[in-house]
């Protein structure tokens, strides 16, 4: 069998983590957000979405990398690029290696 195209940049790193995003209550925002997470190279392990008193939604997502350019902070910036995503941030512990960076 032929080898798949290899490039260190795209090797799965096994990164896992939790993200919290605040979303406006506007049609399509949840789909846009979840779609972006998948297209940028992550699988979901857990998804929670709850409405806040201000009408926005808190989206909590546990993701695992499937082999893209892997950086959860970058993923947060890509999510924040979406209109009606108020903010996106990592939550929970960082690994020792990430702290060292």
């Amino acid at each position, binding site marked *: 069998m032929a080898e798949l*195209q290899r*490039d*260190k*940049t*795209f090797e799965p790193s096994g990164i896992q983590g939790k993200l919290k995003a605040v979303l*406006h209550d506007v*049609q*399509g925002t949840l*789909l*846009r957000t979840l*779609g*972006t997470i998948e*297209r940028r190279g992550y699988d979901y392990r857990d998804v929670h979405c709850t409405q806040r008193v201000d009408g926005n939604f808190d989206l909590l997502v546990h993701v695992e990398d499937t082999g893209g*350019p892997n*950086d959860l*902070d*970058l993923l947060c*910036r*890509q999510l*924040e*690029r*979406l*209109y*009606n995503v*108020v903010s996106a941030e990592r939550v929970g512990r960082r690994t020792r290696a990430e702290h060292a960076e």
Partner: protein
Amino acid sequence: MTTAMQFDIQRAEILEDREPKSGAQLLLESIAAQGVETIFGYPGGAIMPVYDVLPRVPQLSHILCRHEQGCGMAAIGYARATGKTGTAFATSGPGATNLVTSIAEAYLDSVPVVFVTGQVATNLIGTDAFQEVDIFGITLPIVKHSYIARDPADIPGMVAEAYFIAGEGRPGPVLIDLPKDVANALTTERHRWRPYPKQKPEMGKSKDIAAAEKLMRDAKKPLFYIGGGIAQGDGVQEIRDLVERTQIPVVSTLKGLGSLPNDHPNYLGMLGMHGLRAANYAVQECDLLIVAGARFDDRATGKLDTFAPNAKVVHLDIDVAEIDKLRRVNVGLDGSLKKNLAALDPFKDNAEHEDISEWTKLCYDRRTEHAWDYKSPITNMTSGGIYAPKLLHDLSRRADDSAIITCDVGQHQMWVAQHCYFDDPKDHITSGGLGTMGFGLPAGLGAKLGAPDRTVITVSGDGSIMMNIQELATLNRYDIPLKIVLLDNSALGMVRQWQEVFFEKNYSEVNLDDNPDFAAVAKAFQIDAFTITRGDEVDAGIDRLLSTNGPVLMHVKIDTAENVWPLVPPGRSNADMMER
């Protein structure tokens, strides 16, 4: 900081209007209020209320293309030639799906276009009604933003925000899906719109600018790698000034061509898969890569983990999500490219810095050594054949300086990039990100309508032209004086080249020797056309092309076996260029 205030001003007048108006009327008046003059569209069932109102909004000139993809590509060409936001209309169902490739094109090349699609009435949405598709859902991954209009009173604010979003920051496509009953409904209400929410930095932090300047002073082999963001960020003069201040050599992506004129003393050429040797070698050997408005696209970088292996990286981009995306950077400067480039002044006050003269000499010697010689390895030019790179070289130098060249996708696209002269990036309109065959003709007509005083030339191939050849009818209908150069090698040339080089000459489904007589086809659309087949006809052909007042097509027969060189094999380092 953010431009929310401008957005408020844009919508203020229209919100004060309390006349009873339909959604369709509000849509068109709101579009006109944005300063739009030209719409490319195609009517159909669900968008008929809009077309019913259209004749009563005289500010809007509608161009009826002959396919919705043609409408979208024409809007893109118009936007790229004018710097304004383009507008395209289509109906629901197949009209909307025919727009999808254009929407993706605008997304991948960051072009501001507002696409409006008709939709079935709101009570029919979700019922699989006639000509119903979920275009909002289909296009979610390829729009900057999108809306379904559910209330006519939302439309003025929605339209103002759509145009604002399409053009702000990194531009892109915005979709408005308009159900038929919302278009028909009358309202006296005008809903206030949620203020634009995002806060974005205007430019990089001063400490990051200082860090970038220090890297530039300490580098022995610095290199600029510039892309399409230079033109879109209005940073052409700023990059030229910075190059002048630093004397650092420059390589460009396909979309960055023209940011520096081809003959600029610091310019090494296009990098990447079909880049120039001098450019690719410089990237591989540099110790500092200053990336401005480029995004490490795979066609530019080759195998990413071998790209500029010894370089530190400074990355300037208006889109913060591009920084650190594919290459870890040492310094990232987000925000306005224009302001960041203007702020960079590493050698100010005679600051001590490394001597880069040895490096620049090496780069410029290589540029001379690997300059194009225009001797075809295939075509026997003395016995009569036409060598396309030479023809394009001659054409672009004989056209006036302000000429715009649009092109399709394939071998001819790379020849245009390699051999045509550009001294402004807006002179080169190509499908860089999506690589859409069929882009060139409609983009050319859109560009010509946007820039009527400039010569616009579309270079196409015999494969590409057939993908939107119906737009010849649009040229004829509006008498748009577009000049088309059709390079016909009777094959899908780029695929054929790859089959020759990488698939052991196993030519599969690339033979187009049953092409129609393209000049006859053009004449059937009442467009002036002629064919040339020999090298000694090129000069006269270019003369006729450039001197014809109306639309004209020059059909050029070239050798099937002619290939594009150099070529970096896919998945390989840019250092592994193949030649002839």
